[in-house]
């Protein structure tokens, strides 16, 4: 058994003013304290399982309504309204009974994203409570938590926490006297980014290759083990207890009208204080990067920021003031995705950065669709030769002509995800690609992003 982690991690979880009314702390209570995960701490210090007790007194539909009122949108990437998703689950009728499942997506593989891990590490009970409330709201028979294979220590921690919840009567048979039976099982992945995609995740959970499924049928109709299923991100489910504690209407006052609540932003790359910051949606990006994360760590200006995990198109300087909510980021041509901000300074070679990103997609493509499988590989090869001084000017048109042939032509959004970084880098930093082709060397002079020893 890999022991439950005992050494603190150096991530930053707080900032001056965090925990006040302006910046409420709903998701990261006790983060940084390795003993925080115990049931006792959660109950005594963080209002643990208060929301569950209240929810079990409500009708399941009333809980779904409360989630709708809160306006919370999925934190896994697509930003789909959570209450609405929950309402899609079929209800039992006189002649048809369903076995429904709730699945928690803890695959967290998007480069630049490291938030779910903090919840699993420090507040596993908040996730468990959210999953029990969700299970009640949709009258599920079981909950599954799919956790990426690398998080072995977190799998063990979560299992220990689930056992504590079982012992306390929050899970198992006849939960708190309601007559409702529900349990949570943990499933460990084995290293495949694509298993974060919800239907690939379901295949993987069933013990298959993690290949995305054709939709429809959507998971709400036919999901895990052929049964109606809802898939939610760790952060979305962990937000459920605070929402029910404060009430949907009160939660909806946080953030902006169509983008309510708080979310955990992860800042990485060339900043002084990389870390996780929980902020109301709509907080401007430059505030997060400059004020909270301390600005550039290298003394050079920040040139590009990826606003929502590696799959989001990059922003250059003129969009650094963008408020971080789903709609505004989308309107400016990128996506809020998983909330991971990746900052690159002036000396970063954008050809190398793009090549590294595309190599990731080429490696992680599941290979089912030709445009994604071949297209990502082609983009990688063309970028590779540009990077190695063998590029030609036509290559830029070739690259630009590849993305429209991949995007929206594939089974799952991984193909589109690869196009975002490619297109945005070409549009915004074309001069660096041209410089690479004409001078056969980097435009920027920063340290290498690609190693000289073989890839994968």
């Amino acid at each position, binding site marked *: 058994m*890999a022991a439950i982690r005992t050494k603190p*991690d*150096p*991530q930053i979880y707080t900032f001056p003013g965090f925990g006040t009314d302006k910046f409420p702390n709903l998701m990261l209570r006790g983060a940084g304290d390795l003993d925080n995960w115990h049931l006792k701490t959660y109950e005594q210090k963080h209002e643990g399982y208060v929301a569950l007790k209240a929810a079990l007194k409500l009708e399941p539909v009333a809980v779904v309504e409360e989630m709708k009122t809160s306006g919370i949108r999925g934190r896994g990437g697509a930003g789909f309204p959570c209450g609405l998703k929950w309402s899609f689950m079929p209800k039992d009728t006189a002649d048809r009974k369903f076995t429904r499942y709730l699945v928690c997506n803890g695959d*967290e*593989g998007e*480069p*630049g*994203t*490291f938030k*779910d*891990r903090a919840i699993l590490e420090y507040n596993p009970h908040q996730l468990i409570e959210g999953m029990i409330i969700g299970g009640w709201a949709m009258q599920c028979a*079981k909950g599954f938590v799919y956790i990426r*294979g*690398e998080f072995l*220590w977190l799998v063990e921690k979560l299992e220990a926490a689930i056992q504590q919840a079982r012992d306390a009567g929050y899970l198992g048979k006849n939960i708190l006297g309601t007559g409702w039976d529900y349990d949570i*099982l943990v*499933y*460990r*992945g*084995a*290293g*495949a980014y694509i298993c974060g995609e919800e239907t690939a995740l379901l295949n*993987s*959970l*069933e*013990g*298959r*290759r993690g*290949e995305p499924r054709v939709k429809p049928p959507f998971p709400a109709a036919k999901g*895990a*083990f052929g049964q109606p299923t809802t898939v939610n991100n760790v952060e979305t489910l962990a937000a459920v207890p605070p929402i029910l504690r404060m009430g949907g209407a009160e939660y909806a006052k946080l953030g902006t009208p169509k983008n309510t609540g708080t979310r955990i932003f*992860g800042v*990485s*790359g*060339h900043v002084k204080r*990389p870390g996780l910051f929980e902020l109301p949606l709509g907080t401007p990006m430059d505030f997060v990067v400059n004020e909270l994360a301390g600005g550039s760590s290298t003394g050079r200006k920040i040139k590009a920021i*990826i606003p929502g995990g*590696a799959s989001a198109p990059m922003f250059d300087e003129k969009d650094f003031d963008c408020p971080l909510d789903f709609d505004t980021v989308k309107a400016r041509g990128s996506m809020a995705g998983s909330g*991971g901000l*990746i900052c*690159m300074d002036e000396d*970063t070679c954008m050809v190398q*950065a793009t090549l*590294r990103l595309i190599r*990731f997609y080429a490696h992680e493509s*599941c290979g089912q669709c030709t445009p994604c499988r071949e297209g990502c590989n082609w983009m990688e*090869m063309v970028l590779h*030769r540009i990077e*190695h001084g*063998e590029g030609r000017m036509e290559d830029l048109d070739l690259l630009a002509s590849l993305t429209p042939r991949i995007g929206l032509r594939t089974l799952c959004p991984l193909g589109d995800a690869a196009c975002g970084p490619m297109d945005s880098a070409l549009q915004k930093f074309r001069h660096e690609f041209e410089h690479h082709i004409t001078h056969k060397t980097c435009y920027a002079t920063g*340290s*290498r*992003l*690609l*190693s000289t*020893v*073989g*890839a*994968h």
Partner: protein
Amino acid sequence: MNHPLPPDTANEPLAPGQRLPDSERKEFSPEALVEIQAIMAKFPDKLAATLPALHIAQREFGFVSLAAMKAVAQAIGIPEGHVFGVATFYTMYQKAPVGRFHLQVCTNISCALRGAAQLLEKVCEKTGVKPGQGPSADGLWSVEEVECLAGCGSGPCVQVNHDVYDEFVDEKKLLEVMEACKRGDYRPWAK
């Protein structure tokens, strides 16, 4: 297209049998079989035990050899082809032997911005093995280049067997970790 690409011999495909050597152990221990049975019983469908059983196989056999896959298929009672398909899909199942200390370096973008490429080169230099090359002569080390380990804020990150070092790993830190491994102050692979 007649534009030559740099030769990439490192990744030349191997026949499955070549890449998946038979290991000496061919059967699960009784405890492992009990563990697999328990997992099969827990989930709505026994097929769901495929991934967990492969993890157990890796722990028991050291890596997921063809023999290990066969043992998994037999333990669950599912086709060998299914197990092969699953085992080859996921990167965490090592299909060839690895060293006692398997060093996995994240070189994805956030870590790369903080020197992951240079760290990977250092790892190769210190261990004497390249990514994907199999264990060093003394059987201690193997190296793999991996994708994001979800420690992006404090990268570069290195995972040694199952422990993640997400703490701005530099040369000094790396040498400390390697020293600890050599002293035996470290959990062995897959336990």
